[in-house]
């Protein structure tokens, strides 16, 4: 028998896969050169509210000095997220527009602003 709740909202029945957090990796940030993105959150395909709320949570959880990469194809969120950063102790490093998606880079401030890691 069809589990309609699971069909409509799969994440309530199992671990979801629609917000993906990647491991640390080297990234090329416009104007800053190559640096390590300590956390990558891929929110491609998500609506704006979920994108903003997950981003908020990721920014709050980031360690001081770490670089966060947010990937989104939601234009409204891509416009809003840089304005969120200061309120969560982060600086906007830049936004990269790729084919159909945007990558927003932010550095969590504090701990001697360890974002100089390259």
């Amino acid at each position, binding site marked *: 028998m069809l589990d309609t709740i699971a*069909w*409509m*909202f*799969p*994440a*309530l029945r*199992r*671990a*979801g*896969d*629609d*917000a*993906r*957090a990647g491991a640390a990796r080297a990234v090329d940030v*416009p*104007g*800053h050169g190559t640096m390590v993105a300590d*956390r990558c*959150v891929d929110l491609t*395909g*998500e*609506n*704006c*509210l*979920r994108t*903003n*709320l*997950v*981003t*908020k*949570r*990721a920014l*709050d*959880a980031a360690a001081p000095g770490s670089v966060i990469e947010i990937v989104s*194809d*939601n*234009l*409204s969120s*891509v*416009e*809003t*997220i*840089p*304005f*969120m950063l*200061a*309120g969560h102790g982060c*600086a*906007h*490093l*830049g*936004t*990269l*527009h*790729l*084919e*159909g998606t*945007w990558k*927003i880079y932010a*550095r969590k401030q504090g701990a001697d602003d360890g974002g100089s890691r390259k």
Partner: protein
Amino acid sequence: MTEGVLDTTEGVGQAASRANALRAAAVVGFFLLVSAGTFAVDSRYLYFSAYLWFGFIYGASLQYGRFCMASAIRDLFAVGVPRMAVGIMIAVVLFSLVSAAVTVAGKSTFHASPIGLYSVVGGAIFGFGMVFTGGCATGSLYKTGEGSVSALLVVLSLSFAQALFVDIGGVLDVLVPASWTASAAAKSMPAELSATTGWYDQFLAGYIWDLKAITVGEALGFASPAAKAFIGNSLINAVLPAVVILVVIYAIWYRKGWLRKNKDAAPGPGREVAGWWSMVTASKRTAIAGLVLGVAAGLQMWVMQSLQQKFGIANAGELLQALGHTSGLSLQETVFDPGYFYVTTQEAQGAAWVLAQLGMNLTDNIFFGMENGIPSPLANPVLWMSFSVIGGSMVMALLANEFKLKMPTREIAVWAIGGGILMGVGSRIGMGCNIGAFFATVTNGDPSGWLFALGMTGGGWIGVKFFNWWIERKMAKEAPLGF
């Protein structure tokens, strides 16, 4: 880019696409062809084209500014970002000033809505629904132009929900107060209508029609038309409330962060004004879009009224008859023709036309049968505006390489359809959406728009709280995120 840069979605790395430029040119060419072709058939189709090109401007501006009233409420309550709310207030101020000038010139097409609690209730249902869809009524139209299939689902569900809701009877009749039924029965409605059955018919004839509609300029009794328009309608009903809202937003959501960044600024009123202005101009995209929307919305009233005078008509229904489109008119031989920026009713007409083709009779209710009619989409000038909002947005998105066909996940599709249904119901109870019941009303001196905004904000706040809870619950099951 440097740290703290606020030019956001401009981004870096987007390559100019010749293919997208050609696609954009094709969309513009299509609209030009429609305008020129219909004008060649009969010059009075200019009336249709006026709606079409204003819609195009709205769509392009909305897309450029990522302009969405759902974002305004959500971003404030969910993440404390005032960008969109600021943009809307800019548009309100500009629209109200241009509207006042248009009114004084005798070119206004605006009619005030009745003032009553229904605006708060409709706004609350609409606001709650739009949090889940990811866009308001206009936001969903322009996002459809960006290639979002979930936004298209919102538009469709909103449209069909309205068409069905205004005709619904049966069990909902139990909820109709006896006073509504009595008042509706006393109005001697045409025999073709069943005004004393059906929830929405009795809501209109037994409740809404008994309420008083008045603008602030009229209520304050200004003798001079200029004072009525500029002081009563614009200054008191739009500009001052918008400035107060911007001050409240500054104090609650912006001031603390601005002071943190500007520690050296000397305390005093100058510092506060500088901070407030910094908030207003923080997102240039949104501010520019608000400016263009405000001016264009005011100008549209002037253009539509001028065309009505030129063609000697008071409603597009007369024009349709003269052009040979005699089907789909209301009993009063009218169709929906606000003469200004409006969304939702024309989409309900489009959905009703589809349902009528499938055999449903939707002409026995007041909304379609007596007031708005169900013209074919090709003969519905206001629906042309909705199509061109999508087209204008598509052109802008293509030119900026931002167009992307996005299929929704099942969950997002469910939210889109469910939220769209609530938006449809809310817009019919509130007599419009964020545009028709708020943006176009508060800017023309009609205080009912602020009641709708109050409800929409309250509904949006509850929606954000619910959605936040939902996200927390969902993320708790998403181990890979790790935060």
